[in-house]
């Protein structure tokens, strides 16, 4: 089923034009990597701070206040460049289970980050101080680092793992 949908998209007029323009895919992928870098580094900085690493005078809410908007911007760019890649090379993406696992993971991590953003805003005093920071904050940090790292692993492995049964 995935294969026939993918082939329909791949055979569309616009997809064929984009496929035959050699610079489109590398440029799209490069922008995708730039955006994922902004997201990943932001996630790392916030999470490491939540875990108590990094000798910094800045509070968690200060760091998150600066970096969360960059995470949302990055996610938007990732979504757009990702959609474009799926539109140009749908067969490559849709027939590997890794792609769908990646989408599932992103669809879980984005709302989790939104939850973090809201919870932090509602509990700034408790979350900013190392002593009163709840365990759930550290759990979020660990899940974020492992989760987004796995997204990158899956993203790279789309190029290597094929499963023709989909």
């Amino acid at each position: 089923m995935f294969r026939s949908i993918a082939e329909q998209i791949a055979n569309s007029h616009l997809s064929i034009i984009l496929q035959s323009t050699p610079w489109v895919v590398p440029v799209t992928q490069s922008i995708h990597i730039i955006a994922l870098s902004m997201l990943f580094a932001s996630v790392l900085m916030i999470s490491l701070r939540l875990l108590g690493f990094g000798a910094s005078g800045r509070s968690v809410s200060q760091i998150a206040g600066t970096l969360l908007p960059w995470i949302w911007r990055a996610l938007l760019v990732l979504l757009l460049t990702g959609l474009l890649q799926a539109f140009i090379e749908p067969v490559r993406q849709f027939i590997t289970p890794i792609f769908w696992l990646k989408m599932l993971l992103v669809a879980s991590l984005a709302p989790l980050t939104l939850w973090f953003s809201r919870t932090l805003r509602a509990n700034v005093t408790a979350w900013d101080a190392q002593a009163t920071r709840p365990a759930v904050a550290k759990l979020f940090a660990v899940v974020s680092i492992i989760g987004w790292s796995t997204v990158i692993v899956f993203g790279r492995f789309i190029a290597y793992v094929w499963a023709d049964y989909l």
Partner: protein
Amino acid sequence: MATPEFILALQDTALASFIRGETAGGEWAFPVIETLHVMALATVYGSIAMVDLRMLGITSRDVRLSKLADEVLPWTWTAFLTAALTGSLMFVSMGETYWNNLEFRLKFLCMALAGVNMAIYQFGMHRRVSEWDMRLPPPLAVRTAGALSITLWTGVVFFGRWIGFSI
């Protein structure tokens, strides 16, 4: 430019053969190394961009540049070492191809220029950082260094990704 002897010699080692996936059980060596390289470069680029955007006066305006740099750059260097190590391993596996690849050369040109730019800033404006640290927008020389840095590192990522399409 002829490929240097040592690059050809490295390519003939058992390590190189393993990374190319020619050994039983090593089929995933290259993709794994490549993935670690992507995670490392993402940390390098993202953290440098945070500092560059602060130098441009665009973001993190509520924190001194020197403080932000102290906070972020140790992670940048750790990630850079990881990227250099994983990059070297990929290079060892097929050095001749990379050496003769235009995009590979442009990538390293961008990285070298980024290094020069960083050195000029470090030995120039950064020596008097406490004098202008809180000024917004930052002095023109600082903004220029920030703009050059993010442009050159973007070039590193673009050419890096392009290597995969041109070899």
